[in-house]
C-alpha cells in the first residue's frame, strides 16, 4: 500500500552493497545520533563508499572523507543516500 511512497524515498545506506558508492541525501535520526553522524562527516552531499561488512553481518565499514568508519545497521538505516555508479 505504501510502496509508492516508499519508492520515491531515496535508498538507505544499509541497503547499499559492499563496494557500492553513494551520496548522502539526508540523515533521519533522533537528535543525538544525527548529531554524532554529522560530526563524523556524514553531511548532505558527501560521498560514501561501503568497504565491507563484519563477518557476522553487522556492522558495516564505510569510507567517508578519506577515513574508515563503522556503523551498525540501526544507524546506517537512518542515512538516506543516492546511489552513484
Amino acid at each position, binding site marked *: 500500500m505504501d510502496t509508492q511512497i516508499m519508492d520515491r524515498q531515496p535508498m538507505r545506506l544499509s541497503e547499499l552493497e559492499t563496494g557500492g558508492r553513494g551520496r548522502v541525501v539526508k540523515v533521519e535520526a533522533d537528535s543525538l545520533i544525527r548529531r554524532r553522524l554529522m560530526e563524523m562527516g556524514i*553531511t548532505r552531499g558527501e560521498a560514501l563508499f561501503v568497504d*565491507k561488512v*563484519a563477518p557476522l*553481518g553487522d556492522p558495516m565499514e564505510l569510507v567517508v*572523507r578519506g577515513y574508515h568508519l563503522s556503523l551498525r545497521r540501526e544507524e546506517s538505516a537512518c542515512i538516506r543516500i543516492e546511489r552513484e555508479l
Partner: protein
Amino acid sequence: MVTVALAGNPNCGKTSLFNALTGARHHVGNWPGVTVERRSGTIMVETPGHGAIELEVVDLPGTYSLSAKTEDERIAASYLSEPDVDVIVNVLDASNLERNLFLTTQLLELKKPMVFALNMVDDAQRQGLVFDLETMSQLLGGPVVGTVGNRGEGIEELKGVIARIARTAKEDVAREQGPLRVTYGPDIEGEIEKLSVEIRRDEQLAARMLPRTLAIRLLDGAVDTLAQVEASHARKAIQAQLGLSARHLEEHLGADPETLLTEHRYGFAKGLVLEVLDESHSAPAVPANRLDRVLTHRFLGIPIFIAIMVAVYALTFIVGAIPQEWIGQGFEWLQGFVASHLPPGELTSLLADGLIPGVGSVVVFLPVIMILMGCISFLEDSGYMARAAFIMDRLMHLMGLHGKSFIPLIMGMGCNAPAIQATRTIESRSDRLITILVNPLISCSARLPVYILFAGAFFSPFHGALVVVGMHVLGFALAIVMGKLLRLSLFRREHTPFVMELPPYRLPIFRTTLMHMWEKGSVFLRKAGTVIFAGATLVWFLSHYPGLGDRQLAADYQRQTSEIKAKGLPEAEESAALQDLDFAHQGRIMNTSFAARLGAVVQSIFRPIFDPDHVREDAWKDGVALTAGFVAKEIVVGTLAIVHQAKEESDTGEVTPLQESIRKNSGLTPLTALAFMVFTLIYTPCLGTVAMIKKETMSWKWTGFSIGYGLMLGWLLAWLVVVGGRALGFN
C-alpha cells in the same frame, strides 16, 4: 607559568606527542569526578632573547567535537573555556585532515592563541599527501608545525613555537583579531548577531565567553552552554531569540541550525584541505590494506580474533602466574619469618596474619594487571582493538553491549579485577557500567579451587568435571541475562550509537606500551591498594577476634607447646605434633571469632539454600568461610579447612581430608554442595574486584549495588538449584 592544552581527535597521535613533549616527567590522574585520565607535565623551554619559559602541558581527552554530548567532550569543552588555558595546541592527523579540521573550527571559535601540530606527516607522505604549511598557517591564523610524535620529529620546533605564542599570549596581544574565524553566510551570521545582542544583556555571561562564540554554541546545541544560559538572568530573552533564530533558519535555509553549522564547518575543512594539499605530489593509489583484508576476513576474521584472545589470555594469566607465584612465595616466606622470629601474640598475628597477607593480596595483582594493560595498550595503539570491536559487535549487541565489551568479559575468566580496569577502552558510560557490573559473574580462576573441593567431595570425576564446566557456563549465561536486564531497566534511555572510527594500522611504540603498563600498575596500587588493604585487615580482625586477644587461650597454647617439646620426640614427629596443635589453635580462634558469630546470625538466611531440612549442626561454618572468602574467593577453601579442622592437602592423593570431612561431617548433600558452589560463583565480587569497581565507577553507589545484587542473585540461584533439584528428585 603558561598552561598549554593539547586538543585533538581520538587516534590523532596526541598522547605520543604529549609524551614526546614532556618526556617521562608527567603526572597521570583523573579529571575531577570522572574516570577519564588527565595527563599533565611541566617543561622548561628556552626562548631566544627572553630566557626560559615554563609550560604546563595538559593532554585533553581525544574528542571529535566540543558539543559536550559525551563525558570526554564535556571535560574538553569546559577545560578549554577556562581562563587558565593560555594556548591551545590542536593536534591534527595529517592523513585524515578533513575530519580532524571539524574540531578545529570549534576550537578557533574559543578565540585563544593557537598552535597547530600537523602530526604523523610521515604517514601522510607515504600516501602521497604533501602539505603547504605556509598557506595552512595563513588560513588558520596560527603557526603550523609538522610533527611525527612517536619519533620525536618536529618536537623542538613545536616547543619553540608554543613558547613564542605563549609569551605573546601572556602579553595579551590583540586576542580579538587572533586566529581566523569560520564564517557562516549572511543568514546564519545575522542570527548569531541577534543572539549576541541578547547575550550581552548579561554582563557576567558575556565576560565568560565571547558573545559570538556563545551564540554559535547555543545554535549548535552545546549542552554545557545551554545549561549556563539556564542560570542567567537574561535567560528568557536568550531562549526566546534562540527559538526565533532556529525557526527563521529552518524556514529560509531548510535545515535546523545544528545541521547548517556542521555543514559550514565541514565546508571550511574541505576548502582548507584543497588549498593546502600540494597537488604536484598527486597521490599514488593507496595500496589496498592486505593486513586488514585478512584480519577482518569473513571466515578468517573470527578464528584470528580468537587466537589473539587466547594469546593475550595465556600471556596474562599463565605467564603472569609465574611472577605472581614468586610474589606469593615471597610474602609467605616473610609471613613465616615474622611468625617464627617474633614472640607469639596479637602484634605478631596482626603482622603475620593481617598486614603481610593484606599487602600481599594487593601486590599479587600487579603482574596480571600490568601484562593485561600492556596487551590492551598494544592492541589499541596498533588499531586492532577497533577491528576486534567491529568483529564482535553483532554478538555483544545481542546483550545490549558494545563490541569493545567482549575483551573485558573474556579476561574476567582469569581475574575480574584487571578485566574491569580493561573496560577503560569503552567510550560510552552506560556500556562501560554494564560491562563492569556483569563482569564479576564471569567465573575467575580464584573460584576454581572452591569448585574442585566440592566437586571432588560430592561427585564422580566425570560428573565433577561437568559441574566445574557448568559453573563457567552459568557465569557467562548470567552475564548475558544481567547485561540485557540492566540495559532494559537502568540504562534504558541511554542509547549510544555505535559510530566508531577504524583508525589505520600502526606499529605500536614499545616505550609507550611500557609507560602505559607502569602507569596502570602504579595507579592500581594507589587507588585500589588502600581499599584492598583495609578490607583484608578488617576480615583478619573479624576472623581472629576476640579469640586472639584471649589470654587463657594463648596460655593454653603455650602450655601445650611446651608439653609437646618436653616429650623429647624425634624431630619430624615433634614438628608434626606442633603443626597439629597450631592448626587446632587456629580452629579454636576461628570458631569463636566475630566471623563465627556473624555466621551464626546469618545462618537463618542461608538455611533455605544450604540446609533446607534444618539438620546441619555445622551450617554456621558456611558463613565463616564465605565471609573470609570476601578477601579472595580461594580463601573459602583454606577457611573451610580451619573451621572443619581438616587439612587441605592429602597424603594419599585421591580425596583430601577436607573433602572427606565435608562429605561426611558437614551435613551437605550433593545438591546443597552444588548450591554452595553456585552461591560462591555469584555472591559478591572479591575485595580486589570491589576495589576496582569503586576505582572505575568512582561511585560507592554502584559499588554497593554490585555487592547487593550479587548477594541477592546468588541466593536466588542457589535456592532455585535446591528447590528445582528436589522437585526433580535429587538430593
